[in-house]
């Protein structure tokens, strides 16, 4: 690119600390601008990360991080050996697994079906409707679910009774909890998650389809040979993100639906951390759980990314 005047912002690259300092001095406005963001990053992200050392301590809030005695891996051992704590991990993994199995493919299917629609008005109407629940809070979604499933006044229970069956207390029974979590998750997010796949579908060149038609491929063959490979990158990326978050179920949703009667199947790492950590004051144990979650999430992401790059050539980075 031709430049008429040498710009102050683009000095000749000088290596070494002297060159760097010179660059900072010349562009100090930009670095000063970064100060609030960096301060925020350090205070609210990295200090708590460093504060995770309390997972290796018998942390006492009055003594603080500096004076609490060390405890080694005691809390991690407890986490893996206490059956009640193992249950949390199991619940978390099972719900995540169901989500990958049922909730993950739903938006892909929805996007594919929307893409096959011929009427644009109908397509836009469906989109307007299915995107909406994404903007409802989990408290509101729980309200809807409650109106549907409540044992006394729920719509579904009214139907069940009118068919001559016993009313079912869906929201207070452990065996329905995971289904309700996955189901309401699908209800709320499927439409919204389909957007990324719709964008991927829109990015497929129409000439590919025309060529396929000339070759006599029907719609199913086109789907198999053009559409699916076309959205594969998006699918892989979304799946990698989900895998990285396997232990993060979002307390926002689960805690709203959870009650004492559903702990058996529904109590997960995040909800337990809130109850026992923040309400119960067991800071070290719950920090150990949190640290475990972060490390596993990080490793899963790295491993899944590497595998995916090898197999599909797609990755997050």
């Amino acid at each position: 690119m031709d430049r008429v005047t040498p710009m102050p912002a683009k000095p000749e690259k000088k290596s070494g600390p002297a060159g760097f300092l010179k660059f900072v001095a010349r562009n100090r406005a930009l670095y000063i601008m970064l100060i609030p963001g960096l301060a925020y990053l350090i205070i609210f992200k990295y200090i708590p990360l460093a504060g995770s050392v309390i997972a290796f301590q018998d942390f006492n809030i009055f003594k603080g991080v500096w004076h609490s005695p060390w405890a080694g891996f005691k809390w991690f051992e407890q986490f893996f050996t206490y059956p009640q704590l193992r249950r949390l991990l199991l619940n978390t993994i099972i719900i995540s697994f169901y989500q990958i199995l049922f909730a993950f493919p739903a938006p892909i299917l929805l996007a594919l079906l929307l893409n096959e629609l011929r009427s644009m008005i109908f397509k836009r109407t469906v989109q307007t409707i299915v995107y909406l629940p994404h903007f409802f809070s989990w408290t509101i979604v729980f309200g809807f679910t409650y109106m549907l499933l409540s044992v006394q006044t729920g719509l579904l229970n009214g139907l069940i009774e009118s068919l001559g069956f016993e009313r079912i207390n869906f929201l207070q029974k452990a065996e329905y909890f995971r289904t309700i979590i996955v189901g309401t998750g699908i209800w709320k997010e499927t439409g919204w998650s389909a957007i990324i796949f719709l964008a991927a579908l829109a990015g497929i060149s129409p000439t590919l389809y025309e060529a396929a038609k000339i070759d006599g491929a029907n719609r199913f063959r086109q789907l198999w040979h053009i559409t699916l490979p076309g959205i594969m990158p998006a699918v892989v990326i979304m799946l990698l993100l989900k895998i990285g978050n396997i232990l993060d179920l979002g307390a926002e949703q689960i805690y709203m639906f959870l009650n004492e009667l559903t702990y058996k199947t529904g109590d997960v790492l995040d909800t337990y951390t809130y109850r026992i950590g923040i309400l119960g004051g067991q800071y070290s144990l719950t920090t150990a759980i949190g640290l475990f979650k972060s490390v596993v999430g990080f490793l899963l992401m790295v491993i899944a990314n590497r595998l995916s790059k090898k197999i599909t050539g797609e990755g997050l980075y």
Partner: protein
Amino acid sequence: MAIKRSPGEKIFDVLNVIFLAIASLLVVIPVVHVIAGSFSSTQALIQNKVFLLPVDFNLDNYQLVIQNKTFWNTFKNSVLLVIVGTAINMVMTLVTAYPLSKSYLRGRKFLILAFVFTMIFHAPLIPTYILIRNLGMLDTFWALVVPPAIGMFNLILCITFFRSLPEELFEAARVDGMSEYRILWQIAVPISMPIIVTLLLFYAVNHWNSYFNALIYITNRKLYPLQLYLYHLLAEANAIDNYRGVTTVDLDTSPQGLQLATIVVATLPIVIIYPFLQKHFIKGAMLGSLKE
């Protein structure tokens, strides 16, 4: 261009339309049911008479909501939370994203990595809680707006957008002697309206909708945001549901209609801005699918 469709394809098209229509209905029915219930009498609700239309149409439930001082106090708190919280979010995100979008900035890669790293390796909840406590923010409004000041995903979106702007424009301004701050506010911001509106909505909806942060940091009922109020209202309802019918507690005063009207009023702001949301969020969601 006439497209010939085989019988199989025609059947598929019909089934597809039917399937998507049913899916849409499944989304709509719970919402309409709640709206219908909010306009119905308590008696009709308890007897399971309400489906998609109000029974014994009346506005009693709404009258109760309007008279409910606790509700309006939490509503007001939430409005304040959205305004102040989003303002902090926007200033922090823009001011951080702008320098990080400059490809010539030394140390840029390292700095971006430092931000992105916190996305894949989260700080656990408890040390964050202890920090907030030590900062004296516990049980204050600030605990809800300062810790989430920058959304990392939104920051990346913003950096990506700024990078697509022509640097020549900024250089010209620099030659004219404009400071970087003025360049950001007077040149970058006005031409970045699409991303700014998107981020604004992302942040605002998030502040309006979440209750869990407030559950963690706020115990003073006067500071409750609307969603935390709803959480307690509905969790209580769910707990009582178990015993209803067992004891014959006065069913006439069941607050169910009130709950429904509260839900409707609390959702109203979202529904009102939904047309904007749909337009700009979709852009944001698609931007998010771009890899750097």
